[in-house]
């Protein structure tokens, strides 16, 4: 494949040191981007320069380094707010990742809204991080936990969703993009439906944020959660966007440090947004790395990324269709570059083992989404997931390796 793409892929790849390596003497093909992406040089450099020149604890420090750090940190918050088009900067809460963001919500929003006899609604294609916190909340509150059915194509059954909404759950939680099936859910429509019943909607954007433009105001979602490490940023930082009115009415999740305003033995008053939800020393370095990652994405243009990854995805689907006994798990009408499949009569783990030896970094297993596995009656899948630095050549190598592995295992 040598046609001209919207982005200069070799130039981009050269910015990712981790891509330029061999495993078992085979060139690494990194198709595990749904788990975590590699980091461009500018993100790594940002971390490094923070620790080499700027490092200090921020907020409340009067000295120079602390002041500069605070300014940099709050500028990063603004960058994130602009990136997802939040109305206010203080609607951006820094967390340690998507899981942390959603657990914050299950606790703080859960305590606000969910009581004995109420219910919460999720979908049958959630990652455990957007499933178990809500399930456990329901157990704790003696509320009912409802799960919207999914179709055999791997799409949300919208009629079933509508039926569930009529039972007026207190909170609805939905993945923007499924980490197993690749399904891009019609969240704008689903949010609008939920809002007809005045139900707030939590979107798990972990798999979407690096792959398409997110506009929280036009989506009108109440909350949007994502992880830095899945969008070219360092580990240890995530984001929770929340509408001001919700965040203001929720109680803090963690206590201590910056989130406190006045403390006496009897009582504590809390700081304003966003600090109210950011207890303890924040991960400043990683937040600045996240800002760099956003700039990196914006330089390339997220629409270009989307187009390019879309071409990769279609090419991969075409090439995979050559392979006998290959069954895609999930075949939704709108899909992203996350592709799961099984090969009849061959266990995903066996294939994964052989593919690894052939230099292919792919994922096998249930992908922390056991309810999806139950739906399709399988123990696990093989999953490939793309980032903007993947190439058509890599897909070719992957398909060759897959054929070889299948041959070995048949």
């Amino acid at each position, binding site marked *: 494949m040598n046609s001209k793409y919207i982005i200069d892929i070799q130039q981009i790849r050269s910015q990712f040191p981790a891509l330029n390596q061999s495993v078992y003497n085979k060139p690494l093909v990194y198709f595990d981007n749904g788990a975590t992406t590699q980091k461009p040089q500018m993100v790594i450099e940002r971390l490094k320069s923070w620790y080499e020149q700027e490092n200090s604890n*921020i*907020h*409340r420090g*009067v000295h120079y380094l602390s*002041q500069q750090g*605070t*300014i940099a940190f*709050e500028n990063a918050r603004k960058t994130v707010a602009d990136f997802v088009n939040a109305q206010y900067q203080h609607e951006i809460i820094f967390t340690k990742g998507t899981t942390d963001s959603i657990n914050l919500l299950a606790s703080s929003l859960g305590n606000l809204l969910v009581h004995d006899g109420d219910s919460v609604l999720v979908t049958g294609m959630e990652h455990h991080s957007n499933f178990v916190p809500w399930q456990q909340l329901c157990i704790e509150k003696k509320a009912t936990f409802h799960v919207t059915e999914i179709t055999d194509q791997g799409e949300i059954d919208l009629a079933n969703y509508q039926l569930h909404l009529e039972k007026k759950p207190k909170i609805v939680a939905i993945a923007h993009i499924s980490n197993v099936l690749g399904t891009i859910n019609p969240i704008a429509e689903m949010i609008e439906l939920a809002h007809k019943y005045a139900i707030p909607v939590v979107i798990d954007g972990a798999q979407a944020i690096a792959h398409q433009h997110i506009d929280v105001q036009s989506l009108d979602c109440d909350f949007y959660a994502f992880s830095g490490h899945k969008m070219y940023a360092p580990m240890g930082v995530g984001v929770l966007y929340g509408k001001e009115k919700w965040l203001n009415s929720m109680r803090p999740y963690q206590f201590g440090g910056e989130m406190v*305003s*006045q403390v006496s033995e009897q009582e504590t008053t809390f700081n304003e947004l966003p600090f109210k939800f950011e207890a303890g020393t924040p991960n400043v370095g990683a937040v600045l790395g996240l800002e760099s990652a956003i700039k990196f994405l914006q330089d390339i243009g997220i629409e270009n990324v989307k187009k390019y990854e879309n071409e990769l995805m279609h090419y991969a689907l075409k090439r995979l269709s050559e392979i006998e006994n290959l069954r895609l798990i999930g075949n939704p009408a709108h899909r992203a570059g996350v592709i799961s499949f099984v090969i009849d009569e061959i266990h995903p783990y066996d294939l994964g083992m052989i593919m690894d030896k052939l230099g292919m970094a792919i994922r096998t297993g249930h992908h922390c989404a056991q309810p999806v596995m139950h739906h399709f009656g399988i123990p696990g899948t093989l999953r490939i997931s793309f980032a903007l630095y993947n190439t058509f050549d890599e897909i070719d190598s992957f398909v060759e390796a897959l054929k070889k592995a299948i041959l070995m295992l048949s």
Partner: protein
Amino acid sequence: MTIEQTQNQIVEEFSLFDDWMDKYNYLIEMGKDCPMIETQYKSNNYLINGCQSRVWLHTTFDGGIIHFRADSDAVITKGIVNLLIRVFDGHTPAEILTADTTFLDKIGLKEHLSPTRSNGLLSMVKQMKLYAQVFQLKSTQNHE
């Protein structure tokens, strides 16, 4: 003097200083002289609670003109308080609402109004503008 004229005057005063030391010495002097607020107003009702220093602000509205009196427990903060009062005191709500605080940038003391300082000054400016808004509303209602 208009708000702008006072701002320019302050900028000129500060242009005489060569280094930060002179500037801060001047601020400290001003902090010491700052027209103190009457003791009864140095109470929680008038308190603007910065995390590092505290500011008290008392406001009166008389004949279309707003008067500000303020104080702080920290002398450098008080110096800046003094400058802000010099600039905003004795003006109409409309004048106050359209004014900015760029003079602080020009004299290199902008950092004192940074939200990261939490010395109460940024909140004080917000509070002054809010009063101006309230008084403006009040006076238009009175005229209806």
